[in-house]
């Protein structure tokens, strides 16, 4: 750790990890409700479980992005963060908001639009916290060295804050509501968040492989260009059936098919950098997460996204289990893995020590990734069967669901693997030991 203020990141990461634990726990419980529908149906019904599951995911990912920014901007800008005090005030606001939101949800207090359930006071808190953050890091950026990595990262974070403003607009006309709702949801995850993802991956490649900055930053601009060129009009794949004009079927199909390009480019980029790089960085676990992030994002967001994005296909699959199959692998690959990669890289430095618990950390990668892959397969099979029975043959929804039970049972098993992997990750990252449980480097011969 070169700069004292990088330490801020540690507290953001810890807060993020607490919510990560809450997120996967709620996911596991919700997965169990699919198997045993009576479970908790009176005390914590499914809609509340899912709300906590998705909201804690979104908030912990954003806390992780903020932490990553506080960690890497001082190094890139070659100066301390403008005001560490403001950074802690921002964290306090976000934590009060997150805690208030979760407690409120349990008692049924929410705004009731999917993913944007936060009560108004929490939304305003998020906006105030985002403004504090943007002021703080932009000041640091402006006074320091300007690199393409910080440039793109800040652009992504500004975009995140600006598009969140659309969450305040809730017209009574459901079609209008949905159209602008996607301004937040789609333009976040298939637009500006990709800028954040690409810039953090670029930073990790710079540090882990030692490839020349000029090469890395050129790649970065090409990747983010393909991301926004495809992703902005790719929003059209959500405008097929909600009351929007028919031309979106063509625009959405063409541009969202191209959304696979930036994810494929990130795979090529990370692997090319590792091959070119001469540096043998000791943090192998961070490298595994970074490469895994690019690969799983390509399959989850790219391939599984393309699977149901053409309007002729989507007419039948829209709103079936195909969607959560894609959603789970895409979020895990692109944004969960990204956060766990930067945390795995940063934690040892924030504690001023060599990388630790690397093998445990890598086992957690394979447990979580294997679990998520299996979950994606089970939900994909469930979705295919559902599409055929319900959308082609016209069988009633609940009758179809009863025929999918075997897939939900297997999905619960895969969820268990993911939760075990997450717990192992928490242990590996939070409990450094004097000696490695298993050393990543073979012991030298005596």
């Amino acid at each position: 750790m070169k700069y004292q203020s990088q330490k801020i990141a540690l507290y953001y990461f810890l807060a993020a990890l607490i919510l990560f634990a809450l997120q996967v726990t709620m996911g596991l419980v919700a997965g169990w409700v699919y198997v045993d529908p009576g479970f908790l149906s009176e005390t914590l019904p499914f809609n509340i479980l899912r709300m906590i599951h998705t909201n804690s995911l979104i908030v912990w990912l954003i806390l992780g992005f903020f932490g990553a920014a506080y960690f890497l901007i001082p190094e890139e800008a070659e100066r301390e963060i403008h005001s560490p005090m403001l950074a802690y005030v921002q964290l306090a606001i976000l934590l009060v908001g997150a805690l208030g939101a979760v407690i409120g949800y349990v008692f049924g207090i929410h705004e009731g639009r999917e993913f944007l359930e936060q009560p108004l006071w929490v939304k305003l808190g998020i906006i105030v916290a985002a403004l504090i953050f943007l002021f703080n890091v932009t000041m640091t950026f402006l006074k320091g060295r300007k690199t393409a990595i910080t440039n793109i990262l800040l652009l992504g974070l500004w975009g995140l804050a600006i598009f969140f403003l659309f969450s305040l607009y809730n017209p009574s006309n459901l079609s209008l509501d949905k159209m602008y709702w996607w301004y937040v949801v789609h333009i976040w995850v298939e637009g500006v968040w990709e800028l954040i993802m690409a810039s953090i991956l670029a930073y990790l490649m710079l540090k882990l492989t030692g490839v020349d900055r000029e090469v890395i930053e050129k790649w970065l601009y090409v990747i983010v260009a393909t991301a926004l060129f495809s992703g902005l009009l790719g929003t059209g794949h959500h405008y097929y059936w909600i009351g929007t004009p028919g031309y979106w079927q063509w625009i959405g199909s063409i541009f969202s098919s191209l959304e696979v390009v930036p994810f494929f480019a990130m795979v090529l980029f990370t692997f090319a950098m590792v091959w070119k790089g001469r540096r043998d960085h000791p943090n192998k676990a961070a490298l595994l997460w970074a490469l895994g992030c690019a690969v799983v994002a390509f399959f989850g967001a790219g391939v599984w996204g393309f699977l149901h994005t053409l309007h002729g296909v989507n007419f039948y699959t829209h709103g079936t289990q195909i969607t959560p199959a894609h959603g789970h692998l895409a979020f895990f690959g692109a944004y969960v893995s990204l956060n766990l990669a930067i945390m795995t890289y940063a934690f040892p430095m924030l504690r001023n020590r060599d990388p630790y618990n690397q093998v445990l950390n890598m086992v957690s990668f394979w447990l979580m990734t294997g679990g998520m892959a299996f979950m994606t397969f089970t939900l994909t099979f469930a979705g295919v069967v559902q599409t055929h029975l319900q959308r082609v043959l016209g069988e009633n929804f609940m009758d179809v669901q009863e025929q999918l039970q075997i897939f939900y049972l297997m999905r619960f098993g895969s969820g268990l693997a993911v939760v075990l992997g997450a717990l192992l990750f928490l242990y590996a990252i939070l409990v450094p030991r004097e000696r490695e449980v298993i050393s990543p480097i073979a012991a030298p011969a005596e």
Partner: protein
Amino acid sequence: MHDFMTKSRARNIFYGGSFAFLAIFVGLTVHSHLYILETSTDHEGLTEAVARGKHVWEKHACINCHTILGEGAYFAPELGNVWQRYGGLDDPEGARDALKLWMQSQPTGIEGRRQMPNFNLNDQELNDLVDFFEWVSRIKTQGWPPNEAG
């Protein structure tokens, strides 16, 4: 790529292209906004009751179990066409009564079946919610869903 694509050229393409695509996207959204108001939805017929019904829909987070126009959770049936499914086109009064009775009789308590909570809606809330479903069922959705099962 090495000679042609310098870093500054890549940066300029990124900024210029992104701005252009954002402008196209916003332009098309403006057109779609007008299309929704004038063509695809009954904006004139969006009564106070429909607006209140949408609020009932949100207050109880219905979307975190159900889907509406295919969006939401996938735990419970699609409700964008629930009005048609309940025969509202032929017998509006019958469909209204059946929908209200369904919500009032939750949870079913049937072993092994997904349970919908009872939200203790009063008569006005129930009527508003049904008005909302009726209004939504008339949105022109390019022919989606493929059949009545939703």
